[in-house]
């Protein structure tokens, strides 16, 4: 990175911390620290919800995913607007009426203490594990691409935000998320503009869509039906899994995950909470579409510019020092030759080129030649991936998460690279800060205050909350440092880990809201049995015995708890 990039990065990050510290001057009691005195307007609730959901990986991974797999990932969010409606009807009014700090407090009133403790524990376990990964995953990518030290990257990624989160609590989180989202959207908009700006003359958005469509990147809606017929249950992103699986995932995440519940409980009224959630239901799908479209834009860009054989430079360096170094040199040479030929052909095809296309060469012949070169390139890329997968090399064969950032560092002007790197940090901070605040609120409200026999004065509770927030911050950075060596598989782990727990937690809440005759013991036993079942199902899925996309775990977990608790309630009633 150049000096202007470092300056922009440092100013953006320091400015955010200072803003968080300034705005986070809060009432020094639990209501102020965890709920911003319930004074937040709807638009800040909206930005808080979005900032908490969108981690650094979202912005790193989504464009790369569109580049490689197409835009079908957007279907993952189709269930979200429906979940927002159900939440506004059922969950949010109850949380507001009972004036709870955590969602799990309600479960004690509805069932009993053990169900509250179990659900809060499941949340803490899931969140504490996944937050470490949320810090580690973008740190690995940045350190790998920019040559930064991984330990320091982790500390900056997960550590600096502790300053304002500990100091200002929910209020600092809410205000910094507002600022962060503005910078993030601004950065991505500029990046999108520059991608189009750097394309050859005459190539605009319509041409980008045509290029993407021809290459199969505009597969926005997919049915999940196999070519030979029958639904593919292992297919992760399709219309059905997106609407049904995505609905249950979103309902569980926004309705029962304290990192989200804590955002809309800060609203100044029920109306403001509902508006924030419903606006999220309106903007989330188009927003995700645009982020994925950025990936298609980058794909179109590389049709006219040199595409690297592998986007993660550090892995190519790894191969250059392995037993494949000689073969790598040969493959690299052949790849460069094919890529140069392809770029020559593309320059003849581009609308504004001097050696105008169709007048000189038959366009269909050009297309055939280009396709042949693309196939040749794909062969070389596959060879590189195969070598990286060799256990003796120990490399990472998936470079999807490096595509966007490599484009940024290679092609964007000085200063803007720093801003885009800052976007990655801020996205991570927004998500992690909300999580630390929620982990601390659960520990103090659901455990410390609930089980302690002493009643503390408000200022002591406040200090203790700060201490717990600090503890969770250190815990998450520490766990991020421990899991660094697991590589990119971490990113997938974040998504799967959530689905292992969310379904069961949602099931408990669905029973609480919609099955009034079911008591504490049936739901408690059901939750434990179904959670074990989901973990077993995941293990069987990984071994290929039960092929099932992870989004379905949410549905199975929720439905399993509801049905089993009904059965157990019936059995217990008879006894």
């Amino acid at each position, binding site marked *: 990175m150049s000096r202007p990039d470092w300056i922009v990065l440092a100013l953006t990050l320091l400015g955010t911390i200072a803003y968080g510290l300034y705005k986070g001057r809060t009432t020094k009691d639990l209501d102020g620290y965890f709920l911003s005195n319930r004074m937040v307007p709807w638009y800040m609730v909206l930005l808080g919800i979005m900032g908490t959901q969108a981690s650094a990986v979202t912005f790193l991974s989504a464009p790369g995913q569109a580049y490689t797999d197409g835009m079908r990932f957007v279907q993952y969010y*189709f269930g979200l607007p429906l979940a927002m409606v159900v939440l506004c009807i059922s969950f949010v009014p109850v949380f507001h009426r009972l004036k709870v700090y955590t969602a799990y407090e309600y479960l004690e009133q509805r069932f009993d203490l053990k169900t509250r403790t179990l659900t809060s524990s499941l949340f803490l376990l899931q969140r504490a594990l996944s937050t470490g990964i949320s810090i580690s995953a973008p740190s690995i990518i940045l350190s790998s691409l920019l040559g930064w030290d991984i330990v320091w990257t982790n500390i900056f990624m997960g550590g600096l935000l502790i300053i304002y989160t500990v100091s200002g609590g929910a209020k600092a989180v809410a205000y910094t998320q507002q600022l962060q989202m503005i910078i993030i959207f601004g950065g991505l908009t500029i990046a999108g503009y520059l991608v189009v700006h750097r394309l050859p003359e005459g190539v605009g958005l319509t041409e980008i869509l045509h290029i993407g469509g021809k290459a199969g990147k505009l597969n926005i809606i997919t049915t999940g039906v196999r070519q030979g017929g029958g639904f593919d249950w292992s297919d992760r992103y399709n219309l059905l899994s997106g609407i049904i699986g995505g609905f249950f995932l979103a309902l569980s995440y926004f309705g029962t995950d304290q990192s989200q519940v804590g955002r809309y409980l800060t609203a100044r*009224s029920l109306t403001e909470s509902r508006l924030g959630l*419903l606006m999220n239901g309106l903007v989330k799908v188009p927003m995700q579409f645009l982020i994925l479209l950025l990936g298609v834009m980058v794909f179109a860009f590389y049709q006219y510019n040199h595409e690297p054989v592998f986007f993660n430079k550090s892995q190519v360096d790894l191969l250059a020092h392995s037993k494949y170094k000689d073969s790598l040199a040969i493959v690299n040479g052949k790849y460069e030759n094919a890529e140069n030929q392809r770029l020559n052909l593309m320059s003849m095809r581009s609308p504004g080129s001097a050696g105008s296309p169709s007048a000189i060469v038959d366009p269909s012949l050009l297309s055939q030649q280009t396709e042949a070169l693309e196939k040749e390139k794909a062969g070389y890329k596959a060879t590189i991936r195969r070598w990286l997968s060799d256990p003796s090399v120990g490399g990472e064969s998936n470079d999807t998460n490096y595509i966007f950032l490599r484009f940024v560092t290679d092609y964007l002007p000085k200063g803007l690279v720093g801003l885009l790197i800052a976007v990655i940090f801020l996205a991570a901070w927004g998500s992690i800060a909300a999580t630390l605040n929620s982990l601390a609120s659960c520990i103090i409200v659901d455990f410390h205050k609930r089980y302690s026999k002493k009643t503390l004065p408000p200022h002591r509770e406040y200090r203790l909350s700060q201490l717990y927030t600090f503890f969770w911050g250190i815990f998450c950075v520490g766990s991020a440092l421990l899991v660094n060596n697991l590589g990119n598989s971490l990113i997938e782990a974040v998504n799967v880990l959530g689905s292992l727990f969310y379904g069961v937690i949602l099931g408990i809440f669905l029973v609480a809201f919609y099955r009034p005759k079911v008591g504490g013991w049936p739901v408690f036993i059901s939750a434990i049995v179904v959670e074990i079942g989901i973990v077993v199902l995941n293990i069987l899925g990984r071994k290929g015995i039960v092929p099932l996309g992870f989004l379905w775990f949410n549905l199975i977990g929720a439905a399993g708890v509801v049905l089993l608790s009904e059965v157990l309630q019936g059995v217990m009633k008879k006894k």
Partner: protein
Amino acid sequence: MTANNSDEEKTPLFKSWSGWYRLVIGFLVVCIAVFYWLTKFFS
């Protein structure tokens, strides 16, 4: 379970929250329809 007494707060823009719910679901349907068209048109 349904929304409780706090619902007495005035609903912005619409007469009731049902209007908002219809808007959110309707917009999702429109998005899916547009995406479907984009998928077919540019494939």
